């Protein structure tokens, strides 16, 4: 799955920066299952085809409905530039079924760890 383009963006009242992205294919429950490897997922499965909110604490959150081809991403402002590549990678490397099998999860976890170190160094400065 790919993030195609940011169709809307604005600074939010909670201090985050929101970007709405269109996707090249619809979101699925399995995609959010896969995201659980990288953060917290809250779901309201009884609403439409399911509402999902993924939070990678201190980095970004992703909100969306299964079946929709758009997501709302809220970035923590001070790390936005550093983590937006990882966000794209999360979408790009997802394959249907990887929610359970975790085909590319090890590689992503390595990237995640390296990024965590970079952020720690940046914040320690």
């Amino acid at each position, binding site marked *: 799955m790919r993030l195609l383009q940011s169709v809307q963006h604005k600074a939010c*009242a*909670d201090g985050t920066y929101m970007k709405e992205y269109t996707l090249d294919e619809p979101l699925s429950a399995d995609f959010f299952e896969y995201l659980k490897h990288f953060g917290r997922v*809250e*779901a*309201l*499965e*009884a*609403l*439409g085809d399911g*509402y999902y*909110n993924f939070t990678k604490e201190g980095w970004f959150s992703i*909100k969306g*409905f299964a079946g*929709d081809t758009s997501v*709302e991403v809220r970035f923590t402002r001070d790390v936005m530039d550093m983590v937006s590549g990882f966000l794209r990678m999360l979408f790009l490397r997802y394959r249907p079924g990887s929610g359970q099998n975790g085909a590319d999860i090890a590689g992503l976890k390595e990237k995640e760890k390296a990024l965590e170190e970079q952020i720690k160094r940046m914040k320690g400065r």
Partner: protein
Amino acid sequence: MPEHPLIYLNNAATTWPKPPEVTEAVQEALSLPAFGTGRTAGTEGTDYVSLAREKTAQLFNAEEDEICFTHNATDALNLLIRGFIEKHPHCHVLTTALDHNSVLRPLHEFAKRGDITLSVIPIDKKTGTISPKAAADAVTDETKLIVMNHAGNVTGAVQDVRETARLLHKEDIFLIADGSQSAGHIRCDLKSLGADAFVFTGHKALFGITGTGGFRIQESRSEEIEPVRFGGTGTLSGNLYQPREMPERFEAGTQNFTGLAALAAGISYIEKRGIDEIHEQGMRQSAFLISELKEEENIVIHNEHPKVHVISFAIDGLCPDDIGFILSRKYGVVTRTGLHCAPLVHEAIDGGHGSVRMSLSALTTDEECEAAAAAVREVAERAASSVRSA
């Protein structure tokens, strides 16, 4: 994009839609040169500044010379607070936990700089309001100013400004009331309210556009506020100092003619409908929404008896931000979520977690309220079933 027609319930932030006469006034104002008094020899068009002053004074039962225009309510509050502190340096100031950051931030900044000492009066948990007695009890020998909201933007509670003013005027304390959420919703008779200064904004219930606001100050009390902006007024131009007469004392630079044309038209609309009818409609619709939301066990309503048209709620187990997102995307219902620039109110009512706010205007329809109530109830029901099935 939402599959449903837009139902805009964020009128406590900015009203939408505007009455047709407001849109027409903006178009008309832009179709001719500006004919503001003192700044042109032309007399062909409307002097929107004078018209807006006349309309605002009528609405508030005030004198025209007591009305000063600013960019918005925050701007008016900054001007009044700073001007008061220049006149009364190092005084003690009171404010309340119900107030908005437009009051809290300037006051906390001045306190941090050592220009004032500050006390925040807590909310009376029984009534959800500020008790006038608590305000009087917080007064010290150094207290010179209280800044308090008239109607709350989170709970819709209305403060007893009149009684607070009566008690505090005994100590010659200056009272600034923030009417951002009351002007246009409830009758604000400033001759009887008791506030020395009353702040309003144009773009909310008065149906103007963004970039307009102001305050009414009793002429006899205007010297308590030093002017803090200096510049052209179109009057007494040979004088190198800011005129001390009202309203020029506080108005410098070219006014927002287009915005004031909209404000005048917005107030005309309110006059035409009648403030009491607008209030009655909003209270009826608010009561309907509250009664509907109360049907769901997992909905918490933060004030079941608001006095202006604001309803704040939460749904157990769901973050307010998620509720706002779902309502907007799936039902086309636009609300506002989070702390609403009023962190101390939320600290008191929900531990700082935030809420979802639905706020109505005179143009909100019963059908919109019915659709919004159904949407919120459906989200709450689905949330409850998700929690149960988890």
